[in-house]
């Protein structure tokens, strides 16, 4: 068994491409373990811990390939890695000379002066600098990267303010600008509703729901989760609100966020009230009284926000809230729960979308089911061991704890699927709820692997599975196709995330009643 490594000086590659190469090498015959990483101090320490380090010297800009396995295989693996790293075809300018590779924002701006938005997803350490550059180049910015400090975020947003440019993010997963998807976004119909949201999946849920209701959106602006922090003061949300107020194509505006700091909320609501267009506000977890004022419509769930916005745009009366379950749903769930033994009592939620987890926790709590979570809402408890559920448990698999060194479950649902199967095999579980997020950026076939896993499990007497598919018919994964596949496998498919939580709570009620309790 030997350990070999190779260092490529000054050869940066993003971590996703490196992971792909690592995975490919690891599968070679005779190779026990392989790692392809940038030579940062942390990565070198990890190599050491993994026993892949044989005195490797590298700097943070150097690429390191390390393998352990049979000697001949190691040599071949390094060769393959070398080939993979060099396989990028050189672009040609047509006259035989290779075109200059564009490596920097300014280079791009020099070549194409009409660039008006920079979509930045570089590692967090470098993200702030790139955003500042983009603003200096008079671009608007969507900063997908996370791990940008609040102080840097503030600096970036003040600069944006002084230049009258929009900054979405940091840590902004979703936006649709002028009909084009940025980051994780769905293919929704164009229309009269503009959205500004601090949560990526929140924006996806509302925009998809609007599309499902037959209406469309003008713009969907993500702000990133920290925008409404007191230190930042909602600069991006205020800019978005202002831009939508001035946008002739926008008739109704939807604001989505967790409850902001009090003074920030005041400022946003005051501007919303004064913007001259009807505004629907869903501050997840805030009471209606905290938000209500004239000109502002309060929505208690993401789905309600969509329903209300569509009604306002169409001039029709406000619809019923999705949290009031129709009788047909109740009967359906009674029937579905009939086979469940009384001992199965726990709600288990396994979410890819952080906001779906958050909203579900709020709704289940309101229905009398406080839960444990790795990201608990107020009143819920912190899960002691994030890898093991206890009682009612709703987990956000997209949280850092699960995504460190791994792709997000929306891209690669493997870990999330395993967790769903684990919950199904727990004797306490009454119902497992999950989300399936479609659209650009998401996995091409998000359900296939899960359904294969479910088939291997005998589900005759097992817990109920309740899912919601966040997506549209026009998405590359096609919502109806995904729903049909889930139903085929016996999964109950709800219309929105809030409905999933309401259904699950009802199942928990039914089970509690079986035990003679009033939950």
């Amino acid at each position, binding site marked *: 068994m030997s350990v070999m490594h190779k260092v490529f000086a000054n050869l940066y590659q993003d971590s996703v491409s490196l992971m792909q190469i690592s995975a490919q090498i690891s599968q070679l015959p005779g190779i026990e373990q392989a790692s392809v990483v940038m030579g940062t101090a942390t990565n070198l320490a990890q190599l050491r811990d993994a026993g892949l380090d044989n005195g490797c010297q590298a700097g943070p800009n150097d690429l390191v390939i390390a393998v352990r396995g049979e000697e001949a295989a190691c040599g071949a693996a390094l060769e393959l890695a070398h080939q993979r790293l060099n396989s990028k075809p050189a672009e040609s300018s047509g006259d035989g000379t290779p075109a200059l590779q*564009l490596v920097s924002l300014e280079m791009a701006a020099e070549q194409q002066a009409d660039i008006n938005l920079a979509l930045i997803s570089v590692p967090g350490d470098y993200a702030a600098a790139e955003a500042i550059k983009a603003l200096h180049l008079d671009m608007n910015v969507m900063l997908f990267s996370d791990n940008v400090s609040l102080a840097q975020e503030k600096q970036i947003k003040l600069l944006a303010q002084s230049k009258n440019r929009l900054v979405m993010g940091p840590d902004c997963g979703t936006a649709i600008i002028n009909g084009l998807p940025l980051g994780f976004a769905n293919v929704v119909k164009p229309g009269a509703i503009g959205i500004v949201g601090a949560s990526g999946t929140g924006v996806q849920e509302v925009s998809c729901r609007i599309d499902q209701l037959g209406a469309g959106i003008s713009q969907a602006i993500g702000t990133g989760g920290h925008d409404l922090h007191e230190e930042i003061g909602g600069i991006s949300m205020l800019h978005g609100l202002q831009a939508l107020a001035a946008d002739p194509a926008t008739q109704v505006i939807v604001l989505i966020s967790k409850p902001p700091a009090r003074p920030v909320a005041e400022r946003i609501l005051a501007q919303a009230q004064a913007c001259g267009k009807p505004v629907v506000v869903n501050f997840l977890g805030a009471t209606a009284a905290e938000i209500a004022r004239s000109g502002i419509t309060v929505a208690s769930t993401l789905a309600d926000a969509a329903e209300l916005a569509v009604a306002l745009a169409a001039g029709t009366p406000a619809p019923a809230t999705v949290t009031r379950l129709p009788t047909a749903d109740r009967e359906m769930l009674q029937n579905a729960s009939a086979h469940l033994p009384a001992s199965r009592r726990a709600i288990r939620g396994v979410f890819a979308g952080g906001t779906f987890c958050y909203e579900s926790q709020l709704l289940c709590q309101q229905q009398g089911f406080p839960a444990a979570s790795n990201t608990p809402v107020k009143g819920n408890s912190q899960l002691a061991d994030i890898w093991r559920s206890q009682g009612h448990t709703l987990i956000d698999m997209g949280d850092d704890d699960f995504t460190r060194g791994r792709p997000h479950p929306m891209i690669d649902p493997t870990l999330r699927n395993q967790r769903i199967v684990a919950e199904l095999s727990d004797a306490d579980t009454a119902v497992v709820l999950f989300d399936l997020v479609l659209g650009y950026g998401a996995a091409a076939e998000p359900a296939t692997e899960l359904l294969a896993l479910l088939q291997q499990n005998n589900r005759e007497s097992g817990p109920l599975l309740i899912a919601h598919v966040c997506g549209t018919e026009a998405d590359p994964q096609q919502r109806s196709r995904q729903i049909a596949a889930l139903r085929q496998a016996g999964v109950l498919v709800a219309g929105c995330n809030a409905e999933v939580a309401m259904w699950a709570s009802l199942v928990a009620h039914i089970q509690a009643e079986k035990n003679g309790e009033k939950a």
Partner: protein
Amino acid sequence: MNPLFQQPLKVVNAGLAGFADNLKQANGDVVALSWQPPALGDVQAGLDLAALIRHPLVEQANQIAFERYLSAQPVLIDVMSAAEAIGAMAQRKLILHSGPPIAWPDMCGPVKGAIVGAILFEGWAADHQAAERLITEGVVELEPCHHYQAVGPMAGIISPSMPLWVIENKTNGQRAFSNFNEGLGKVLRFGANNDEVLQRLQWMKQELAPALKAAVRQLGELELKPLMAQALHMGDEVHNRNAAATGLLIKRLVPALLACDLPMATLQRVVAFMTGNDHFFLNLSMAACKAMMDAAGGVPHSSMVTVMARNGVNFGIRLSGTGDRWFQAPANAVEGLFFPGYGVDDAAADLGDSAITETAGVGGFAMASSPAIVKFVGGTPADATNNSRRMQAITVGANPAFTLPALNFAPTAAGIDARKVADRQILPVINTGIAHKQAGVGQIGAGITTAPMSCFVEAIQALAQALPTGEPA
């Protein structure tokens, strides 16, 4: 109001390639970057760099510096001894060397050998040991040529009685100096210091310099930029190849020499020396470039590089906006071809002030002009033109005084912008000779090298620190 919603969206994608693919799939207009962490991945330097990108003070300063560079008119006006031309050299036992400052014990072989040779040439010591003692005891002082508006190829040694070309920038009246080219083989600039070398230096001082001084006086003034421009059209890049420029210079000097009533024997030796050395023009090219770059110096906040120079150990640069400060890093290796019998292990590190030619937009930057030497320094003619094109991405502008026929007479890239180097990770290319690491062996090859990135990173950080505070970013 922000016009974003009223414009067609055009995105530049930095990071995950999938996001650019999605936009393309949705019929969006997207430019995908092959993004790399700038400034050697140093996060703080990256932020400093970001603060400088399109900063109005820097942009303005660079325009001023670049304008001064463009409008410089370097003219050969005289030949003087170093002691006459440079005041400090008349007062002290001072010897100038190439590159950034370096202490005697740290110097490389060829530079040490050349300094000893210069001391012997000046008659300050009778032998090597005595010469070295003068240095270690501080009797003889050593300083960079660049500290005195001077430049010298390879070891770049200038001692008080050596003759210098005197160049004046007619635009600002400032002077720049360079020593005389000694030819090939065993020469002082490669560290050789035997009798043959010293005798040649004596002859250059006693016969060549007075003759050329007379000829220059006879000529009046010789404008150097048009001569360099013409040479660029004749296959020189006026750094590693000066065959055409030397010919053009001789064409001007010989009639002047003939008009000076010099003894025929002198005339024959002088003309034979010049015609026997294809690099005779190099030192004039360097001094002309030095005059142009000095014109651009000292503009606060300018990120334009005014000096690139090497001392055989370290590479150093200076920026217009940071004045006399040097930013240094170990010199990069030279990729090149070696004369028969020599190899990489024999090579000294990159050496000489001649990178002033690249700093001024010729040399490696004008490589497309010089297909005759591409094999030597850059592979194929296509590589050479690509190098010249690539340099356009890291410069403040281009110099219409120097045009490149191979690039459809495009002006050469000029005025290296340290911001662009650090942001785009394109290093200035430098055509260079390779010296043997032992003193006196001489040139053993030639090739191409680059300026080390860390100089530029350090320089932009210094520049960022000098920005007025209170800027939004």
